[in-house]
């Protein structure tokens, strides 16, 4: 066991059992899976993806390249990092070779979303973020503080710093207490800000595993007036031979394992550093009882105080040198150390030192991911050897280590100032709190980055064990190869080598990669090479979290009419039309769709049928200029329509193509009610508003959507009049008193007020009864009762389609497709010559005026029993030599009870000139159907039936 006997943030009274790669272990509450594994002396992860090299836990955080695991349960999930999985009782995980496995078992997790607004959002709960939160919260502004760890404190959790003469974590606890007491401050821990989007919109993923309630993760959508990024920094690895061996670990991780998790990850340690950080780690190692065999500093003259303190602890400091190779089999056994000259070449003998842990600090990369996502620019700071935030693009500041401030006092100063500033800019002025005294040595000395530690022999192109991206197994040799191939841009090299594209997205290694490239290109500085683009999410997000609760039953609204319960009770088969569920047909037990539809059609043609037509869009168009307005949007004229009369209209877009159609009724001089197709109701309302508001604001007319105000019951067939009479005894339904295309307002026998129109979409005598939707179901039921003795038959969309097709009425969206003019539909009669309307000018264009455009025609299969498939293509010749240009295609095709045969509608080039000609439909199965082109109106061409 590597667990230290005391210290750390783990709860020794709360042992947790877990399984890793099939073996049972015990860890403690407060552990991550990685720290628990290390405590159990498990360093190894799965071998590397491409080269099968042994790998071990290398970091203690989100930047981890190796320790990918599959959570087998509870809560199975592929591709998690052992370094970020909080240990829980019963956790079972297996190590992964860089590639996850999806579990076909249904995901039962619940994922939620929240939308909140705040004046100040602070990302990061380290000293800088806490200081910012404290300052901002004191202003009374709303403050949200998010941190990805279970505990606040950031890097203080891993250190031994003091603030105000007390352990820093006591200060953290005080700050937390004060923040918690503020009504308008919200602290979200285990919450990672993953994306920073336009207009200060950030996404925060909260992990609620192990929290009360059924929710596994919550995605917070936060709109902030000001943002303070206090995201800290990532320690960089270094690039030398064998740097991927298990036992090579970031120094910061070693410190975190020691101080936060009370785990000693090695017994005999060497440190390699380019900066001050490793010295504190070395001392911590010694006080934890480890042996520190050497501290290798790339700087020829490291700060004397640091060197002295190390030597006092018995540590050998080897300055101006680097580890040029790590050796070992399954784990590092020794490192080879050599002096480097100013040009980073080996300038002395190589010395080997045995060790089982190499702690590496290659310098610090400020966590600028979110800053960059916000479109803020970066600059390369030579003194810090790091990319730091430059110009902000949004209302944001970056503070603390995330902008290169590396000392604790500096971080606190920075945080307090930024928190107060953010609150003030959001309208809540507040004083900057004074910074308490801190331990530590102030600003660290200048680092000496060594981007590529040379191999002991060979050229960069040979250095295929100098790893740049561990997860992608990409090395200096790979980078060199990309450059030799002609690549110069960091973006190309990324794509050629795949560096930075793995699960860790190069969090720790990205800047190292830039350094390597700069070095190999002979660039003056990494600043010349730049970084690749930072993109969200900052950490990988489960698909399910992004989907949230809009899955399964909540995926998309199901819109139903007031009459829907009846349809369900009576066995309707439904069709999705937009978001609506519409009955398609009502099969009797054992009845096929074909039989049901023939039966329903028969009833409507011979007796009486009834259909729920509620889903049609309805818009009240009211005002003195309503008629004029309609004249401009419909191709035909409405201004002179008589009150209580109805007219069919077609709307085109400005390009002249049919866009919607429907019947509009005039209820009063200044009041029309328009119907639209089911799928287009919202689109048409938008269209009307657009033209009114942006083109014709002088017209005095207003629109109100009343689609759901009304339930519409269509009673159709020669015997519909009898049903109406029973339903509305006071209504004179005779043809003279109530002619076709007129409307009446009346009280039904049951007392319900109704608007009844004589409209027909079937060619038969028909009435549409509109009642307030509250009464829809009752009215439908009374229609059914009134028609019972007549065998009244409910019918669905399929029958409706057959009936209208027999009459040659097109359906917009089925017989048209956005490339069809009213003329193509044979509807010249609906196109006014006398007035202008939207789209009119387009009819005069060369192509729109062609006579060989595809036109709507009827088709009668030569064999009357054969049904043409909808979507069949038509050719002139039975002999088809592919490729052939089609004449057109079948848009609608049905069996007709009335015609006793099959028939179809089709769009055919120059179709109206071809009446009587035979065309052929070659089918996918090799068959061929011949059909004769006819007029579109196949049933009752004289229109004798509409009056009953």
């Amino acid at each position: 066991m590597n667990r230290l006997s005391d210290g750390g943030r783990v709860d020794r009274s709360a042992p947790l059992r877990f399984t890793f790669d099939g073996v049972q272990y015990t860890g403690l509450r407060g552990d991550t899976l990685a720290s628990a594994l290390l405590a159990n002396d498990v360093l190894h992860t799965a071998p590397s993806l491409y080269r099968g090299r042994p790998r071990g836990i290398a970091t203690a955080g989100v930047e981890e390249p190796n320790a990918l695991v599959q959570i087998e349960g509870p809560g199975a999930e592929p591709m998690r990092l052992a370094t970020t999985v909080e240990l829980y009782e019963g956790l079972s995980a297996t190590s992964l070779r860089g590639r996850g496995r999806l579990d076909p078992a249904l995901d039962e997790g619940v994922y939620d979303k929240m939308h909140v607004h705040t004046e100040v959002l602070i990302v990061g709960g380290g000293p800088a973020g806490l200081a910012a939160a404290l300052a901002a919260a004191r202003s009374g502004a709303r403050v949200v503080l998010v941190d990805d760890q279970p505990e606040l404190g950031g890097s203080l959790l891993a250190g031994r710093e003091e603030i105000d003469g007390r352990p820093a974590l006591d200060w953290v606890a005080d700050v937390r207490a004060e923040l918690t007491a503020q009504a308008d401050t919200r602290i979200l821990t285990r919450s990672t800000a993953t994306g920073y989007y336009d207009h200060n919109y950030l996404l925060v993923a909260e992990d609620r595993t192990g929290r009360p309630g059924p929710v596994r993760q919550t995605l917070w959508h936060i709109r902030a007036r000001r943002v303070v990024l206090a995201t800290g920094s990532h320690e960089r690895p270094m690039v030398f031979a064998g740097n991927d061996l298990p036992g090579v670990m970031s120094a910061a991780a070693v410190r975190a394992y020691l101080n936060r998790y009370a785990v000693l990850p090695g017994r005999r340690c060497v440190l390699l550093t380019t900066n001050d950080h490793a010295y504190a780690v070395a001392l911590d190692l010694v006080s934890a009882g480890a042996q520190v065999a050497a501290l290798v500093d790339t700087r020829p003259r490291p700060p004397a105080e640091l060197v002295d303190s190390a030597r006092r602890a018995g540590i050998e400091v080897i300055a101006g040198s680097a580890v040029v190779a790590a050796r070992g089999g399954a784990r590092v056994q020794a490192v080879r150390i050599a002096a480097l000259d100013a040009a980073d070449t080996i300038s002395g003998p190589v010395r080997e030192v045995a060790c089982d842990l190499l702690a590496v600090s290659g310098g610090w990369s400020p966590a600028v991911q979110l800053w960059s996502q916000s479109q803020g620019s970066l600059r390369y700071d030579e003194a810090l050897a790091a990319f730091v935030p430059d110009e902000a693009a949004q209302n944001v500041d970056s503070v603390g280590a995330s902008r290169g401030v590396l000392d604790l006092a500096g971080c606190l100063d920075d945080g307090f100032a930024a928190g107060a500033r953010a609150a003030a800019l959001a309208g809540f002025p507040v004083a900057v709190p004074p910074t308490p005294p801190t331990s530590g040595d102030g600003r660290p000395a200048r680092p000496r980055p060594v981007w590529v530690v040379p191999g002991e022999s060979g050229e960069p192109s040979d250095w295929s064990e100098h790893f740049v991206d561990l997860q992608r197994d990409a090395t200096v040799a790979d980078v060199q190869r990309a450059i030799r191939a002609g690549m110069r841009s960091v973006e190309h090299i990324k794509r050629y080598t795949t560096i930075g594209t793995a699960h860790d997205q190069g969090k720790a290694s990205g800047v190292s990669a830039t350094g390597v490239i700069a070095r190999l290109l002979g660039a003056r500085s990494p600043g010349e090479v730049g970084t690749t683009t930072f993109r969200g999410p900052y950490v990988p997000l489960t698909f399910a979290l992004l989907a949230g609760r809009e899955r399964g039953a909540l995926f998309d609204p199901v819109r139903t009419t007031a009459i829907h319960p009846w349809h369900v009770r009576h066995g309707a088969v439904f069709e999705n039309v937009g978001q609506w569920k519409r009955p398609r047909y009502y099969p009797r037990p054992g009845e096929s769709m074909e039989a049901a539809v023939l039966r329903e059609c028969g009833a409507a043609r011979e007796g009486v049928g009834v259909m729920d037509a509620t889903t049609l869009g309805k818009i009240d168009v009211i005002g003195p200029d309503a008629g004029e307005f309609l004249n401009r949007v419909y191709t035909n004229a409405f201004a002179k329509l008589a009150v209580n009369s109805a007219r069919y209209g077609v709307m085109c877009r400005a390009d002249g193509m049919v866009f919607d159609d429907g019947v509009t009724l005039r209820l009063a001089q200044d009041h029309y009610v328009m119907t639209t197709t089911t799928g287009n109701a919202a689109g048409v309302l938008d269209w009307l508003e657009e033209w009114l508001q942006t083109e014709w604001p002088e017209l005095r007319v207003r629109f109100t959507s009343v689609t759901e105000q009304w339930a519409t019951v269509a009673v159709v067939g020669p015997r519909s009049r009898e049903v109406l009479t029973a339903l509305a005894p006071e209504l004179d339904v005779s043809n003279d008193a109530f002619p076709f295309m007129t409307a009446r307002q009346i009280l039904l026998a049951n007392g319900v007020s109704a608007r009844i129109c004589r409209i027909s979409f079937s060619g038969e005598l028909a009435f549409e009864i509109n009642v307030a939707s509250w009464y829809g179901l009752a009215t439908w039921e009374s229609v059914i009762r009134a028609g019972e003795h007549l065998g009244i038959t409910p019918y669905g969309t399929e029958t409706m389609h057959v009936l209208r097709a027999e009459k040659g009425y097109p359906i917009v969206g089925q017989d048209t497709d956005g490339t069809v003019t009213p003329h193509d539909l044979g509807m010249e009669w609906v196109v006014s010559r006398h007035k202008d309307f939207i789209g009119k000018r387009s009819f005069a264009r060369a192509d729109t005026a062609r006579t060989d455009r595809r036109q709507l025609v009827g088709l009668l299969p030569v064999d009357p029993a054969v049904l043409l498939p909808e979507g069949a293509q038509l050719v002139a010749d039975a002999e088809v030599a592919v490729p052939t240009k089609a004449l057109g295609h079948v848009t609608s095709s049905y069996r007709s009870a009335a015609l006793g045969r099959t028939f179809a509608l089709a769009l055919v080039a120059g179709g109206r000139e071809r009446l009587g000609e035979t065309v052929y439909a070659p089918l996918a199965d090799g068959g061929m159907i011949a059909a004769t082109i006819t007029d579109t109106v196949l049933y009752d061409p004289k229109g004798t039936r509409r009056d009953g």
Partner: protein
Amino acid sequence: MTAENLPTLHALRRSPIGHLTDVLAEHSAAGRRSVRLREVPFLAQLDLQLHQHGSAAFDRIASALGEPLPTTPNTAVEAGDLRVLWLGPQEWLLIGPDGSAPATADLLRAALGDEPGSLVDVSANRTTLELAGPAARQVLEKGCALDLHPRSFGPGRCAQTLLSKVGVILHQVDAEPTYRLLVRGSFAQYLADWLLDAMVLL
């Protein structure tokens, strides 16, 4: 319509989520944190739109209602037993008790006089869901991107917005808080399902 046949008529009515009454009640009682959801069906609703030229009508309507129509965006006023919600620069929704639409419409029509304007009875177009309780705001925040903090949105505020995938008119009626959500009939079931699900997750 006469008073005698009202009960018979009302027996014929069915609200879009009338069948959920018990379910809503159960959830309201069972929620981990107290949030109550119920339907308030059959409220009278009138959509009124004026033209910018119509300020005289605006004044006449004010005296007819006893309150001017609210002109501050996103606010509602109470006028007797009516609630008048601002929907747009020239559009209002007048909400009254069940059955009051015809009388209110007559009143408004008279006030409009000859001036152009549009008045439409939309009582059956939307139904009303009432969500109340200390955690009601949190339920809404699961799917509504408006700033509902008391500093931005409180009693007397209203908005046309989206909740989940559904367009709603949101009206906060008291500070508990109690919200009313007016939703088109065809979407009511989905919205109720969505809210119930959200309530379970508090």
